[in-house]
């Protein structure tokens, strides 16, 4: 009896969708609140136009194309997933007042559990899945890999674009290893980092204003500068609606981090989305939403990809 690969006929998205949450938990984060305010009361600070020439907005999308199983005579069924990642950037040219999708890349991966890895037959001209594996048999670990690969790819692209001179707005927290002009942009505020006495400052923010910088580190290993900024006054909104959190590397000197925060604070409201158009308005920025639509298109038609995989795999004996 030989090992065989099967595509499960379960819907690929069956099972709990795994949402990335890299937010540092407040319990583990050590927050320093006075790096910029130097002990003075917190007041909203207006951003300013630092003459930024271009902004690169980075985003990525991912999809489980199919759940697969290696039928191993000795190990029994080994679960795996075939996934597609697409990530890219929209670059806004300040002078030309034009946005363009500048980068868009697709990766396809097959991830198997229990340290197993088999080659997935090519399912189409552009449907090549690179195989890798996780040592555990926990199915959730498979999606964690997907998440990690996504973040890595986005991080790499962000640093690359920052090196080319763009101000980079990354989707979600940054991976702050390298001093680069990459601003992590966090849409939703699930974790509360501020003590009660600083919260009124967030409530007092007007559009285009930010809180003073604060620094937090996790486990003492690295530090990030962070600040809250308001994109828009939302009618009938609560005090935190229209607020986003940004962060940049702690490798910057304070004045560089301040400048980056000010420039970003000045620019971001312009990209805020409208509530009647975007469900995650205003935080889900217009260029990012457009990029996301574009990237989803690049993943290809889900039903078509699934069918192609089924056809290619159909009980294939594995070498």
């Amino acid at each position, binding site marked *: 009896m030989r090992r065989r690969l099967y595509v499960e006929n379960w819907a690929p998205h069956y099972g709990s969708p795994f949402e990335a949450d890299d937010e540092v938990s407040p319990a583990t984060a050590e927050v320093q609140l006075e790096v910029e305010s130097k002990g003075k009361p917190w007041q909203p600070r207006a951003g300013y136009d630092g003459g930024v020439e271009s902004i690169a907005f980075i985003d990525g999308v991912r999809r489980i194309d199919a759940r697969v199983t290696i039928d191993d005579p000795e190990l029994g069924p080994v679960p795996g997933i075939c996934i597609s990642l697409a990530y890219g950037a*929209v670059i*806004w*040219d300040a002078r*030309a*007042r*034009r*946005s*363009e*999708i500048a980068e868009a890349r697709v990766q396809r991966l097959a991830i198997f559990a229990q340290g197993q890895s088999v080659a997935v037959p090519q399912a189409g001209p552009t449907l090549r899945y690179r195989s890798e594996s996780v040592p555990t048999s926990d199915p959730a670990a498979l999606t964690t890999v997907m998440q990690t690969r996504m973040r890595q790819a986005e991080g790499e692209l962000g640093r690359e674009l920052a090196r080319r001179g763009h101000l980079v707005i990354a989707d979600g927290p940054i991976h702050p290893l390298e001093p680069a002009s990459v601003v992590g942009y966090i849409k939703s505020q699930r974790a509360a980092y501020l003590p009660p006495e600083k919260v009124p400052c967030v409530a007092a923010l007007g559009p285009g204003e930010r809180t003073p910088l604060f620094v937090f580190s996790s486990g003492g290993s690295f530090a990030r500068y962070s600040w809250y900024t308001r994109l828009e006054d939302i009618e009938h909104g609560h005090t935190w609606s229209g607020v986003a959190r940004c962060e940049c590397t702690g490798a910057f000197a304070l004045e560089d981090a301040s400048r980056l925060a000010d420039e970003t604070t000045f620019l971001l409201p*312009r*990209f805020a989305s*409208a509530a009647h*158009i975007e469900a995650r308005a205003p935080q889900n*920025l*217009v*260029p990012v939403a*457009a*990029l996301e*639509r*574009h990237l989803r298109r690049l993943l290809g038609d889900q039903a078509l990809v699934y069918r192609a995989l089924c056809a290619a795999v159909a009980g294939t004996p594995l070498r």
Partner: protein
Amino acid sequence: MSDDTKSPHDSVGRVMGTEHTTTQEFRVALDSDNYLQLDDLVVVRSDIPRLGELHTYGVVTETEAIYEGATFESDTHRIAADGILPAQKVRSAHVAVTRVHPEVWVAPDPGQPVFRAAGVQRERALYVDEMERPLPVGVGRDGQAVFVDLDFFDGRKGGHMSISGISGVATKTSFALFFLRMLTARRDVVGAGATNLRVLVFNVKGEDLLWLDKRNAHFARDKKHADTWKVLGVEPAPFPSVAFWAPPRRQSSDAVVPDTGSRHQDVSAFRWTPRELIDEGLLRFLFTDASDARNQIPFIEERVRHQLSRWAVDVAGRPGAVVLRQPPPGGHPRRTTVKPAPGELVIDDLSTLVEAIEPHIDPEDGEPDRAWTGRVQAGTLSAFLRRLHAAVHRLGHLIKAGESRRIDRQKAQVTVVAIQTLHELAQRFVVGALLDETFRHKEQSGQRLPLSAIVLDELNKYAPREGTSPLKDMLVDIAQRGRSLGVLLVGAQQTASRVSPEVMENASIRVVGRLDAAEAERAEYGWMLPATRARARLLKPGTMVLSQPSIPVPLVLTFPFPPWATRREEVAEDGDAFDEIL
């Protein structure tokens, strides 16, 4: 096959693959550095399994542009003003397929490069390669000639032309004359039919057509005009052989003067003698109102017409005049002349004719003469007489004894008959008489050649959709049989929906200028594509939509400014700049 469909560098775009292509139409996603405009001709090459190379030809019917990536209308501002939304401007074009070559009806492949059709490809797109005798009738958007298959005009495969469009922009008549000019000037295309080709044109409004033989001073203002004529292969010149005819003035005593306003020189007056009226049965064209047929007037008219031809005898020394005398058994000997008896009424015009008929129909005492009236009611008889009296008043000046002044269609290639000054009844009489003469002449010869073309504007007056009249019957007859007899009708009307369907349906070639919006929606214009219909409301003078049996989609063309004058003010004096540009 030329190579221009193989190298993608000069393509204008690609066949769109987001929607189905069909054998009827497809769309083109245009390259960002190129464009297509309405009426452009394109070609696409597809490789069809088991068949090989297939060329799809088409004409652009609509062009579009959109921001791809914009979902909401306000996204336009986000894209164009602030630039915060990435989007791509995409231009595209709709193409109606005119032809596939070889003729295997398969839709073109998506993604294939689309080329402007030029040279051989353009001819294929327009079926020129299949036309035995392509006659240029204007130029397309690309400045190149657009052709009609003459076989579908001159009776070989079809006949007649119908021109519709609102009045005022003078396009219908202008196009008709331009077409005639092509027909008379391109003998190389027309072939045998060009020899002794005769054209009969009625001038029904203004005096636009009385200057066809004069050069147009405005022609030289723009060199483009001459260039266009050059493309069409015709020297821009006035009609070389034209004869002008007009009815005589009413008050002209003995001298017969044509009734025209602006031009008198070289215009001949025409009229008929009572003898001609009787011999040719023209009496029936005095009863052409569509309402006449609803009562029994045609019945009496026919009786009277018959009796007149039996009773009329020529009067010695009075050419064209007759007296009415009871015929002996076997009838009056032909060509006899008599001297009128004292007191006998000599018929020398319409008024005396009516006077001579009246005693038979409505005698002062006694019963009407059944031989002249048949069994009709008294009311009908008086209606008949009322119409006769009205006719005396309205067209009495067209009937007079004397030397024959009937229109001589052989005098020139183009005969222009000016009837604009006449009452409607008289216009119908003249049109009826001349069409009858033309048609009868061809019927007798039984030959298609030489061709005889008739240009008649306001066709709805002569062959209306509702009712019947002798004139309508004849036009229907011409429409149906004229094709084989070489009598070709170029009919024009504001609204095709008001013209007898029998006449319209028999026109193989249909041309439309600007249309009234409501009119454009009518079934009569069903042959136009929806996009063309919408445009027909906006066509400028000089732009027409042409439909012909050999091309499955209508073409939009423009025809050049005429080198002949259409008003006295346009007439070029000698030494004008006209010649310098040629």
